[in-house]
């Protein structure tokens, strides 16, 4: 369970999928860091990741974290977006229909209430239907 402050503080990064790209070696990392994890450079540029990507791995959580009972079964995936990866929830799909390699697109959705009663909206991913 998170707090209103945290969601407010992170809104820009979370909703715009802001990663950091290293100006020296080109490595892209999400979440953004203060120094490049590969070459150590501090010359990093903010960059929005693409909103479409591919599921690298996923899990279906049956025993939820406290506060997420209403979102169970919860599908969480690692998603490749351009040159980076993002961990997020996958929605609008039955658990048995998720697969590695599935194409997904970002969407803004409500998530579990914060400890202090806020109703945060975050990026989730839904299947990309052609």
């Amino acid at each position: 369970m998170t707090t209103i402050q945290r969601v407010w503080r992170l809104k820009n990064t979370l909703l715009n999928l802001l990663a950091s790209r290293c100006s020296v070696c080109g490595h892209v990392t999400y979440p953004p860091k203060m120094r490049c994890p590969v070459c150590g450079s501090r010359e990093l540029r903010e960059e929005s990741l693409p909103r479409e990507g591919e599921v690298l791995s996923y899990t279906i959580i049956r025993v939820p974290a406290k506060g997420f009972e209403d979102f169970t079964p919860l599908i969480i995936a690692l998603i490749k977006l351009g040159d980076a990866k993002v961990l997020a929830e996958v929605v609008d799909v039955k658990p048995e229909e998720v697969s590695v390699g599935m194409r997904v697109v970002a969407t803004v959705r409500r998530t579990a209430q914060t400890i202090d009663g806020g109703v945060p909206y975050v990026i989730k991913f839904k299947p990309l239907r052609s």
Partner: protein
Amino acid sequence: MAGVGMVNVGKHVDKSLRDLAGQAALKAMEEAGNEVPEALVVGNMLSSLVEQENLASLIGDHIGLRGACGLKVEGACGSGGLALMTGYSLVASGLFNKVLVVGVEKLFERPSADVIRGLAYAADADYELIYGVTFSGLNALLMRYYMSKYGVRYEELAYWSVLMHKNGSRNPYAQLRNEITLDDVMKSPVIADPIRLYDSCPLSDGAAAVFLVGEDVKKLTDTPVTVAGVSNSIDSTDLSSRLELDYLLASSTSARNSLKMAKVDLREVGVAEIHDAYTITAALSIESIGFAERGKAPKAWSEGRFSPGDKPSINLSGGLKSRGHPVGATGVYQVAEVVMQLRGDFPGISVPAEVGLTQNIGGAGSNVTTVVLRR
């Protein structure tokens, strides 16, 4: 190492955090000829569950160490290994000659939902927990990625649990001493697909201690075991920014550095205790240390590799899966168990060995300590 002490891992409703830690600490002190330590290093992750911090003072006072130096070390599930390394460095630096390292965890105080939430604090609160992912969920992501990349079947990974219960059934300190079948694992409930209950370690209370002495250790014990090498490495807490999802950089780095410090070749290791919080963690740890090629650990253990008597024999204690995983104490249990193996007095399955290794992993591979021990 002049002495070790452990309490049985399990559900200790009748014992507090200080009772558990004190019991293990006094046992280690007794083994060391009732010497009094000059410093106490405590490893712990989640004492906030019992609304208690300032652990070194609490435990130190309980066992009569007022006036000694005391501190707590935290590195999620890797806190115990880190505490050992901290204790070692206090002795190696010459600051103290006698240091007691105690790992302790008390989980059975709160409803399991609170404990599960607490364990997830090892992950990234801003970028992972905000989505409701659990610690099992994060490991499930690694497991599916591994299975998908290497074409490893669920059953091959699950067989690890069967092997661990077999080893642990002989360990009097173990929490789950029943033998299980592959069928039992495959019929256990799904926690975070593909991870089932029996792929996972249990929740545990427990405490373990080791007594480190610099000079004159031979005056205190006839069977001293030496810390030949110790090293810790970190990696990202979040999985998103990991460079590789099927390899634990911190496991590999800390293993390599501790072996180098010990001037030991991996092939000399006779016994090892590794961190199998989930079956996938066992595979990743075994491969990242270098005991098996990448993607090959499940095949190796299915063919009898790492079983009692093999070199190395891995997790004769039953590992986290069967001995249990009292989070911040686990790294100290591993060291105490390997010390007993090298001394030849481990009360469960015991094999003769000169060199042992322990690896304690915090988070999903984000804080790893490897210790090389020599008789």
